[in-house]
């Protein structure tokens, strides 16, 4: 295996780690806002790392640019969706969980 292959493996694994972290955050965090934070930030970074890893394996320049474009579009869409969900949650009066958080008082779990 060449250095480029090893580098791709490392980047994709790092990306998978961030996806895992983001998913854990979405499952474990107490309210919409922290969950949004976990999902959008960690997943965007994870996708970026995976795309970078795949770009090293791309056969041609156009393929590399298309992969980069996919990441940029996903960034744009997820940032906007995050803002819209957060904004409409706040406007509909969903309070952010503040102070010390305990699992027993989790409002998202009945």
């Amino acid at each position: 295996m060449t250095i480029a292959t090893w580098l791709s493996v490392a980047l994709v694994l790092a990306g998978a780690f961030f996806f895992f972290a983001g998913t854990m955050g979405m499952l474990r965090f107490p309210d919409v806002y922290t969950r949004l934070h976990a999902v959008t930030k960690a997943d965007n970074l994870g996708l970026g790392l995976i795309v970078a890893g795949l770009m090293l394996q791309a056969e041609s320049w156009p393929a590399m640019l298309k992969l980069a474009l996919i990441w940029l579009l996903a960034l744009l869409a997820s940032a906007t969706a995050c803002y819209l969900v957060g904004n409409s949650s706040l406007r509909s009066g969903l309070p952010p969980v503040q102070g010390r958080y305990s699992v027993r008082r989790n409002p998202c779990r009945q």
Partner: protein
Amino acid sequence: MSTIAWLFDGLLVAALLYLAWSLLSEQDLFKAVVLFIAFGLLMALSWTRLQAPDIALAEAVISAGLSGVLLLDAVGYVQGEKRPASTQSEAVKARRIEPVRTGLNLLALLFCAALIWAVLDLPPLDSGLSSIVQAQMGSAGVTSQITAVLLNFRGYDTLLEVAVLVLAAIGCLTLREADQSAAAAHLREPGMQVLDGMIQLVIPVMLLVSGYLLWAGEHAPGGAFQTGAMLGAAGFLLLLGNRMHFQQIPGWLLRISASLGLSIFLLVAGGIAISGRSLLEYPVSNAGKLIVLLETAISISIGSILIILFAANPPSASSPTIDQATPSEDTTEIGSK
């Protein structure tokens, strides 16, 4: 490597079955729709694994994207006017439909068994009709086999499909004109600048991609249905972001763009029939040009039909009906595509 592929496919099938089960047993309609969108995405992945990129594209855009939006819209509409029902009558109703449900479940199980039997009965590794298609590609006018089948060899099927879509759009527009009381629940809150900015950036890319899909359909995965779905999605974004107002789109424009594909299809079929050939038997020398013409017209039609399906109901209370709408210059986004 093949172990990993087997593992991946196994996980995919298990996830699909699990999602199908949970979306059918989910009581909360909103959650069911979200599960349905996830199901569509995994289906698209499955088509990719089966090396059917055309179907994967259509599945991703239509099943996961557009159907998701339409269903969410419908859920919002249904739940807005939900009446509180007494629990006693619910229980009586449930007891009454129980035998019907059991019967339907048995029928579904029988159908499932018949399907499994049919799959097991298939000859192993049969190439199906692809060798026949391969042999006829010289007369198709395009180099993509899928496009050749859809618009040339089996053009009749596509003609009828487009007709069904036009009928659906007509039904939607008819309902819209009947019900003018319900108010459109549209996003008019402050803080729409972010969505606005995204729309400004994304719409040109979407138009570019739909043009690419139309062009690629001649020799690669792509074609009218994917292009139309992409145009429809762009229209959804414009509607949701208040960039395009359905009530202000002139009626003639809606009618022309929705029926363009069917009209041109019928004209082509009629012209060919008059010249002494059978209904959709294109002359070999012009087949390519005719297919490009049809694909362009069908794309525009599918895009506008999807917009009609999404936006026609519920109407805004204060808006004029489609016939009274004055044709204005600034709302011709659909036509310019």
